[in-house]
């Protein structure tokens, strides 16, 4: 594997700020980005990503490639939580297995952006429509996870207090992050080039700076959360690395099948590999309060996220390149 790829990824400022955050926590600095500033950065990123994606999607139109990519994304978001659930059941109770399955079936928008940023340093630009894929892949796993829990949970424990399917669907499809990215995408779609000119200095020019700030915070948080998993043994940390790589590989194969460009294939496989630490915890808290958030949150935030950012993205890109060399045309 080309080490320059990894290094190239690592010396990029946003990724370096992620390291700075981790280091700050590890050496017990009191550096802190106080509430609700992390929320400002994450709202900004969602708005900017969505809007940009919408503008691009308008340029592309709904081509075959787009339809294939979106369908494939939806498919992955449904299948991943299912098989993950049964693996997790080997070691965990129904509730935690369902919550972690949902976590890995859903996606992380910041991992996505970091992949896009990585591609840009290589001079590549993935199709903006992949943002639509991102938006579509956030919700299904939440519903699947809750369905699985309700099928397999021992009936007597299943206290109905406070449960309603409408709340589940609202949490899955209308939670803040899904709604903001989807809404911004539609706004981008509606306002097109003209809208883009209006918002570009905000949504594009300062984007990398806002991303750096957010990654600084993610580094602080990831390092702080890693301790939560100390008592978890080997299974969960291993799961948090092996399953994303496996999902990325499926993603790469699927991308090859539907003939995505390498840059789009990377983004697609990164979506498959990423795990949710925003939308899923919110949904689980309401619909599966029995699941332990100090398991599924640190897995996504403190292991899978840094792994994807540091090792995963260049690794998946390397695999895509190799796959393309071996099987030039399908």
């Amino acid at each position, binding site marked *: 594997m080309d080490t320059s790829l990894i290094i190239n990824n690592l010396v990029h400022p946003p990724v370096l700020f992620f390291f700075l955050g981790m280091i700050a926590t590890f050496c017990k600095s009191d550096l802190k980005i106080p509430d609700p500033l992390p929320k400002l950065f994450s709202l900004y990123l969602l708005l900017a990503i969505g809007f940009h994606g919408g503008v691009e999607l308008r340029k592309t139109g709904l081509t075959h490639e787009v339809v294939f990519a979106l369908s494939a994304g939806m498919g992955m978001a449904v299948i991943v939580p299912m098989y993950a659930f049964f693996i997790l059941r080997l070691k965990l109770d129904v509730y935690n297995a369902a919550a972690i399955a949902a976590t890995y079936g859903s996606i992380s928008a910041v991992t996505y952006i970091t992949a896009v940023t990585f591609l840009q340093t290589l001079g590549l630009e993935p199709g903006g429509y992949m943002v639509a894929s991102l938006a579509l892949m956030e919700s299904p796993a939440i519903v699947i996870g809750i369905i699985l829990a309700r099928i397999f949970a021992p009936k007597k424990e299943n206290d109905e*207090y406070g449960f309603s399917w409408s709340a589940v669907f609202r949490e899955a499809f209308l939670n803040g992050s899904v709604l903001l990215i989807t809404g911004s995408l539609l706004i981008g779609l509606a306002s097109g080039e003209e809208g883009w000119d209006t918002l570009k200095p905000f949504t594009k020019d300062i984007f990398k700076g806002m991303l750096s700030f957010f990654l600084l915070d993610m580094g602080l948080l990831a390092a702080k959360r890693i301790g939560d998993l100390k008592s978890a043994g080997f299974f969960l940390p291993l799961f948090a690395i092996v399953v994303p790589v496996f999902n990325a590989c499926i993603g790469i194969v699927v991308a090859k099948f539907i003939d995505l460009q390498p840059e789009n294939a990377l983004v697609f496989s990164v979506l498959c590999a990423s795990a949710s630490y925003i939308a899923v915890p919110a949904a689980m808290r*309401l619909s599966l309060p029995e699941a332990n958030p100090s398991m599924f949150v640190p897995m996504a935030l403190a292991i899978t996220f840094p792994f994807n950012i540091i090792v995963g993205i260049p690794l998946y890109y390397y695999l895509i390149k190799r796959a393309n060399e071996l099987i030039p045309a399908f």
Partner: protein
Amino acid sequence: MKPVSKVEIVVDSVEVENVAKFLDEIGVSGYSIINDVIGKGHRGVRSGYELTDLFKNSYIMVVCDEKEMHRIVEAIRPIIKKFGGICIVSDVVMRIHK
């Protein structure tokens, strides 16, 4: 200067609207809520989660008469049973309330 009950409740913040709804149904004269309460209990540490508004508690204080107090305790029991929390009661003297 009448003696009344003070009910203090700590619950998961996502449940605070439900608690308020119960209090409205019971018809208490008022209540006060402090959000952003962190803590520890049987369900482990709850110190908030910066990326969402989750994993925090809310503190609710209700000054009411004894009958209302009993109704409140019954109404929030299932919430605390499912989502965790604590409810304590003490005697206070109401000095001013219009």
